[in-house]
């Protein structure tokens, strides 16, 4: 049970909520295993469960709003949702415009190629064709590494292009690869962890003004880390604990 606020006066961090008494969470729902739909069409995933747990700690109901990446960003500004749990990496530019709570997951980047590809290290990426989507950090990373970026809507399409030889490589997170590999054990693709690209972390992203709420969320996540919920969720969705800072 939560040490909830007195019935009458609403605590400061709840004042700006999109919907009273509810934590409205924005996410894409297209990023397995972070947030996605299971076969029955139910919204699920690591970030879904995590935000549910966070809301519970805050004494709030939870509501999910699903929309596209650009909308997630714009929607925070116009307060269509209170927090975005969507694999958002904290960068210098972004912190200027948004508030980030503490990271909840740390992942490694992998280079996915056909078996027998001559891409062994990040240095080999130069001049190669990589399939990436705009809304990911990996697109930027791939560009920095000197690849010719072929744009695709999502990870699935990127895989498709590598498979068909229309692209040489795609960069993505190790865990996304894990999910794919699990679903397609017979795949002829392989992945190589690459150190030279930044390791990435994901944090809840909030409206610039919601510092108080961000702090509360950080605190809630800490509690969840302490009581083991966070690790359990990670094990459930990734088969490994990615919630500890490496």
């Amino acid at each position: 049970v939560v040490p909830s606020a007195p019935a009458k006066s609403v605590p400061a961090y709840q004042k700006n909520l999109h919907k009273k008494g509810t934590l409205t969470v924005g996410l894409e729902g297209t990023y397995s295993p972070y947030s996605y739909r299971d076969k029955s069409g139910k919204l699920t995933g690591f970030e879904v469960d995590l935000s549910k747990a966070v809301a519970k700690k805050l004494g709030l109901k939870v509501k999910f709003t699903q929309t596209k990446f650009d909308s997630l960003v714009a929607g925070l500004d116009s307060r269509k949702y209170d927090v975005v749990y969507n694999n958002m990496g904290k960068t210098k530019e972004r912190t200027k415009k948004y508030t980030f709570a503490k990271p909840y997951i740390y992942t490694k980047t992998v280079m996915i190629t056909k078996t027998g590809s001559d891409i062994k290290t990040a240095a080999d990426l130069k001049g190669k064709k990589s399939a990436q989507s705009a809304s990911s950090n990996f697109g930027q990373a791939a560009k920095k590494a000197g690849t010719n970026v072929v744009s695709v809507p999502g990870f699935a399409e990127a895989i498709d292009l590598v498979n068909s030889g229309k692209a040489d490589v795609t960069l993505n997170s190790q865990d996304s690869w894990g999910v794919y590999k699990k679903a397609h054990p017979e795949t002829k693709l392989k992945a190589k962890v690459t150190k030279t690209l930044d390791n990435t972390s994901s944090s809840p992203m909030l409206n610039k003004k919601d510092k108080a709420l961000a702090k509360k969320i950080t605190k809630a996540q800490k509690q969840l880390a302490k009581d083991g919920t966070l690790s359990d969720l990670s094990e459930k969705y990734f088969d490994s604990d990615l919630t500890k800072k490496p």
Partner: protein
Amino acid sequence: MFEFIATYAPQLIVAGIKYTIPLSLVSFVVAVVIAATVAVLRSYVPHATGLGKLGWQILKLILWFYVWIFRSTPMLVQLFVVFYGLPKLGISWLSPSGWIAAVWVLSLNTGAYASEAIRASISSIPDTQREAAAALGMTDRQIFMRIILPQATRISIPTLANSFISLVKDTSLASVVTIVEMFYLSQQLAAVNFEPLKMYLLVAVIYALFVTILSIPQRYIQRWADRFVKDQR
């Protein structure tokens, strides 16, 4: 294959019935009303002087601007501005929900295109029809509503059907205003099963189904509208 369809088709169809179809139908009705009004007003050659004339000129300028802005910018941006932009400027009554924002934008956008199609059909009615009605003392309004429009309707049915069909598919943009309609749902599902091609094919079949069913009335309306035209053997 069969399992794939059995798993996903029902969810997609439900999303279609919940969002795609009502969004299309509501927006289309609003769009046609807007389009007909705009087309008639823009086709109208007013017979006014002085202040009345100025008023007409301003109205026509506004209508021109409306058609121009909605046709020349991407609908995605229009949705974005109405849903995320206007509230920032304090105008949030226009988009209290994604649903309403979507209806607004879909109607206004489709209305802008359809108004040009209706305008074309109006211009296809020979001027002799207008003159015959004018000679009988009918007001400009009556001439338009009772003589020109009914005949122009016949001509504009195929192009309005175009607008409607486009609209059905444009509803997929509603995902940017937080509506998980059929198409976005298919993308979400594809992200997990890594079968975007199959998924898209499935959703395309469902769209085709919807479009085909919703287009059935067209042939009857067309047949009715052609009643006064000699059979084209």
